């Protein structure tokens, strides 16, 4: 297949707005204060409305309805606000059905939000300090699937044969049959949208957790683990299924036991209804 033609389809995605780019720059820069987000979004009524709708969803469990950005920050903190802003901004690209991956309307978005929320929770336990950047990377890591989906549909039988007969991962089979995989394509989107090099690196390597940008950075292992958990629980379970490589080294690196794995799954079950409601709210525009 003509990879250049596939890459050109990046332009068919709903682009990042000017306000969105400014927020991305803030959360990607460790020297900037997250409070700068407030100054950016206060002039954007749509973004503010999306943010408040997400903040008032059952997931956050606020007893009082928040009606202003400042109030939302006071109740939820900047990490949650940054995540909610990103959810509100990027949902429109993710909510359509992705037939090549056998995902119905909203399923890729549910998968992306669930994966980002689990990654955020794991990152908080590991006391990472770049949580908005990690959350956004986890949220957008599968954006390449949106472009690749139509090509997957055409090549599906060949891909399945590679997975079943040769023991390949779905990702490797995408690359072999189509010429590019969804992680690489997602990284190309991130580059085109001028995401930070760190986010581009995470998106490109989210199925390859042994690749790390900095020696002590746990972002990719955490995003990989959150993704693995979503696959196991079947959240947004599509045609690619669980056909991705497992890395025990990630569990060791994160000091994550099988009991931790099961407890994380059980804890997430307790939030599923609220997550679904928030997914519908954030994707409802």
């Amino acid at each position, binding site marked *: 297949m003509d990879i250049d033609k596939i890459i050109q389809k990046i332009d068919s995605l709903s682009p990042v707005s000017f306000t969105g780019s400014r927020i991305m720059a803030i959360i990607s820069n460790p020297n900037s204060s997250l409070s700068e987000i407030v100054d950016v979004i206060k002039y954007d009524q749509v973004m503010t409305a999306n943010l408040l709708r997400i903040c008032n969803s059952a997931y956050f469990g606020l007893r009082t309805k928040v009606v202003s950005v400042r109030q939302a920050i006071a109740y939820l903190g900047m990490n949650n606000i940054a995540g909610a802003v990103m959810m509100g901004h990027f949902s429109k690209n993710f909510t359509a059905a992705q037939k090549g*991956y*056998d995902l119905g309307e909203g399923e890729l978005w549910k998968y992306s939000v669930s994966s980002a929320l689990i990654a955020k929770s794991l990152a908080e336990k590991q006391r990472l300090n770049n949580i908005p950047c990690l959350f956004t990377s986890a949220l957008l890591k599968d954006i390449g699937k949106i472009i690749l989906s139509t090509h997957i549909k055409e090549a*599906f039988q060949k891909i*399945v044969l590679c*997975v079943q007969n040769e*023991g390949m*991962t779905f990702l490797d089979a995408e690359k072999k049959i189509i010429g590019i995989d969804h992680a690489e394509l997602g990284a190309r989107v991130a580059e085109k949208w001028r995401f930070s090099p760190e986010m581009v690196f995470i998106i490109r390597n989210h199925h390859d957790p042994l690749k790390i940008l900095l020696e002590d950075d746990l972002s990719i292992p955490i995003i990989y683990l959150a993704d*693995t958990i979503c*696959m*196991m*629980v*079947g*959240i*947004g*379970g*599509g*045609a690619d*299924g*669980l*056909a*991705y*490589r*497992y890395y*025990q080294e990630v*569990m060791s690196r994160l000091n994550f*036991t*099988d*009991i931790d*794995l*099961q*407890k994380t*799954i*059980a804890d997430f*079950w*307790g939030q*599923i209804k609220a997550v679904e409601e928030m997914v519908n709210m954030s994707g409802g525009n």
Partner: protein
Amino acid sequence: MDLVVGVGDMKVSNNPEAVIITYALGSCIGVAIYDPFVKVGGVLHYMLPESSLDPVKAGNNPFMFGDTGIPLLFKESYKLGAVKNRLKVIVLGGAQILDQGGLFNIGNRNHTVLRKMFWKNNITTDFEDVGGTVNRTLKLGIKEGEAIMRISGNELRKIKWI
């Protein structure tokens, strides 16, 4: 009338109009049982093998775990007139990430707890499609016990079990 069984959930029915469905079984296990004589059936979708992980959560939702969900599936069907030795049984799910080994292989452990309980209670399965790396969906029609499975990305497949 579709009765959707969510993750960590169970539905039992004797309504001939009911079709019980559970979607996207990854490492989770879906168990369907059906008594063709009284036309009673049910589906359980559990996520984790053993309730000892968190007895409080198991108390609040026994369908989350195999060892608490499976007995309830059978007990609830008995309440509607099903009889153990007439029950037909389907087991689907238990998928795993490639090369996922040992204790982290929850799909395999979910299946193992079921096999142990079935062996101990003398229950045999009439159809199983377990393991691999695929997502599965299961439908059970109460009127005739028609069972259909679908592997994501593939066509529907009728299960021959009655």
